[in-house]
């Protein structure tokens, strides 16, 4: 994985000093809270309902075991002994003291980590496919391009006060595991007819209160123009994105209001201009970065045999592992969704254990997934049972990946100052209610947001739940038919909302309709797409 050189280290160290100085000026009153707010946000620091929350960047979701161990230590030293992995492959801590934040950032910098631009109206952490570099179905490893974009977007002087936040995802396989088209810019690395690698750009996707699937604005951007084209996309947005209404300020609104063709025309014009400005790093820089992403030293000639005689292990293998590109290896995912647990939470001890296991069984590497789980990307099949036993002993062997128990949920009203309703208790109740039926229901992406900002990705859930405030009471709307994969679609609201217990019953009714109507090996989503909303409405409200 990528290693900082002196320049990268110095940039992060400088940022720590800058933030230390900003906190000092805030504490002396030289900076007002209004002035300090965007500065702390660009260092990942939110003021939440009960305390400060710090969001730490995990660039393209990749961590070394030393970095993971530090995340566990920070949870113990500065928080209450746990951390929360997020839908943008980051981790956040919910009980942080402002005065201690510069020291946390310094601790992070000591393992080549930071919290730069994890919030605020700027280019956020670049996300990617959690199976990058390991998946059997990828064209190339997308992470070198994400790293190139990370450096370009860090402290970019023109784009630190955009109309609104800006999220970029980079993938390189047709199976989209990063919800790429629901990003401000989604990039898919592709090969053209001439056999060259380049970047396909989708611009203007997003969730939030106006969900949109990003249209393709350019089929192929050559690798030696990647930064220049990105800069053109951003400049048009910075100049013309709406600033009169924060709810209409995301780039998706600009692309929608201008129309894809006009936005594209403006970007192309800016791009032609910027090509003369010498802002593109040389291909040699991309080659330098790529060296850090070469395959680990896989053993060859290994067997793909697995002893599945232990039924619990067998279930976990079936649910939580994925084909690896290298024979004899497998990708294994740790579900952070135990029955009745808080989705995405892990204790400091669990985080450190996963760090040790990655060191011993996965070439020192881990990934955070946008579904709030942790991946061991390169596990030798011969080691898999041992790894599973160690996970099992730490209550990390929940076998429910991509089932109804593998719920994405935002922090909701338990923590978040924007939320209208709680998300976590709904997730807990659903995982408890369906634990016995999870296998029968099969693949299911259930996603819960506690307000219309959609941090829990409810628009993209096969089943989505949106918490709202209705006359001072929490109320939950049900959506069906969303998807974030290569077949991205947005869920539709079924009708009037439900109270806390009612929504769990409603989910059950929806799954009963599916189980009664499914044909062959249809997933819930397939059945919904075939039969439409009407039978579900009938069962829910009839």
């Amino acid at each position: 994985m990528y290693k900082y050189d002196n320049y990268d280290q110095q940039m992060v160290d400088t940022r720590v000093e800058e933030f230390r100085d900003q906190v000092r000026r805030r504490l002396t009153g030289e900076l007002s809270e209004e002035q300090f707010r965007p500065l702390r946000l660009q260092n990942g620091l939110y003021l939440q309902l009960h305390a400060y929350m710090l969001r730490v960047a995990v660039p393209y979701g990749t961590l070394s075991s030393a970095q993971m161990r530090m995340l566990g230590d920070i949870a113990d030293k500065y928080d209450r002994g746990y951390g929360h992995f997020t839908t943008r492959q980051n981790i956040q801590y919910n009980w942080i003291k402002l005065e201690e934040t510069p020291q946390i950032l310094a601790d992070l910098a000591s393992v080549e980590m930071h919290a730069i631009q994890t919030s605020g109206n700027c280019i956020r952490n670049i996300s990617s496919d959690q199976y990058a570099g390991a998946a059997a179905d990828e064209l190339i490893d997308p992470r070198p391009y994400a790293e190139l974009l990370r450096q370009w977007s860090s402290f970019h002087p023109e784009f630190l006060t955009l109309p609104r936040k800006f999220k970029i995802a980079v993938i390189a396989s047709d199976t989209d595991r990063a919800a790429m088209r629901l990003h401000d810019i989604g990039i898919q690395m592709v090969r053209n007819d001439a056999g060259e690698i380049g970047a396909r750009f989708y611009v203007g996707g997003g969730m939030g209160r106006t969900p949109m699937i990003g249209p393709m604005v350019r089929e192929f951007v050559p690798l030696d123009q990647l930064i220049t084209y990105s800069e053109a996309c951003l400049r048009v947005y910075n100049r013309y994105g709406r600033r009169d209404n924060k709810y209409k300020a995301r780039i998706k609104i600009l692309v929608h209001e201008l129309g894809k063709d006009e936005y594209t025309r403006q970007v192309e014009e800016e791009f032609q201009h910027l090509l003369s400005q010498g802002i593109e790093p040389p291909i040699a820089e991309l080659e330098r970065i790529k060296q850090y992403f070469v395959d680990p030293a896989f053993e060859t000639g290994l067997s793909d045999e697995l002893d599945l005689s232990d039924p619990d292990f067998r279930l976990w293998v079936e649910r939580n592992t994925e084909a690896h590109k290298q024979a004899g290896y497998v990708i294994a995912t740790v579900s952070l969704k135990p029955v009745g647990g808080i989705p995405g939470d892990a204790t400091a001890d669990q985080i450190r254990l996963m760090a040790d296991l990655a060191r011993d069984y996965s070439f020192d590497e881990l990934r955070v997934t946008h579904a709030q789980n942790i991946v061991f990307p390169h596990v030798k099949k011969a080691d898999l049972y041992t790894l599973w036993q160690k996970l099992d002993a730490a209550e990390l062997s929940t076998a429910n990946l991509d089932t109804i128990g593998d719920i994405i949920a935002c922090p909701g009203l338990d923590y978040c100052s924007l939320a209208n309703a709680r998300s976590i208790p709904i997730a807990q109740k659903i995982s408890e209610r369906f634990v016995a039926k999870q296998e029968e229901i099969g693949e299911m992406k259930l996603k819960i947001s506690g307000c219309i900002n959609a941090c829990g990705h409810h628009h993209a859930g096969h089943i989505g739940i949106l918490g709202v405030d209705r006359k001072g009471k929490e109320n939950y709307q049900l959506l069906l038919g969303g998807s974030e994969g290569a077949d991205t679609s947005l869920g539709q609201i079924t009708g009037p909302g439900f109270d806390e217990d009612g929504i769990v019953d409603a989910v059950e009714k929806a799954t009963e309709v599916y189980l009664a109507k499914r044909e062959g090996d249809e997933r819930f989503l397939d059945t919904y797409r075939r039969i439409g909303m009407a039978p579900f409405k009938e069962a829910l409200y009839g």
Partner: protein
Amino acid sequence: MMSEVQFRFRDDDPVSDPAVTVDAFAEQTNATAVRVEPGDDARELLPHLDRLRLIEVNFPAFTDGRGYSSARVLREAGFDGEIRAVGEVTIDMLSHMRRCGIDAFAPEKALNEADAQAAFDRWADVYQATADGRQPIWAKRHPA
């Protein structure tokens, strides 16, 4: 309302000509200073750069970043006169403004000199090529 120029990174004589709006500038063929508001298209000035000595870029609110693009667009077009940031200019914007080609600063509220100096000196290296002529890190990694 005219704020004092507090920081200036130029050797030529300061310009004190009053700035006119971009709209008025088109009519006034003798004007040598103009003020660009966030909603103005700085590219409208490009045909007239040779008669301009000063372009003020106004930041009515420090949260509105359009002025950074305006400044860069002007520098990319070859403007080498003074670009002066006016309005709500704060300490933590200074280094980014410099990078976008702004070379004079007239904050509506004067800034602490020591803090400002620290901000200007903060970044020994930079990741991007912009209009300020600094060599980005990628160029240092791969000397020609």
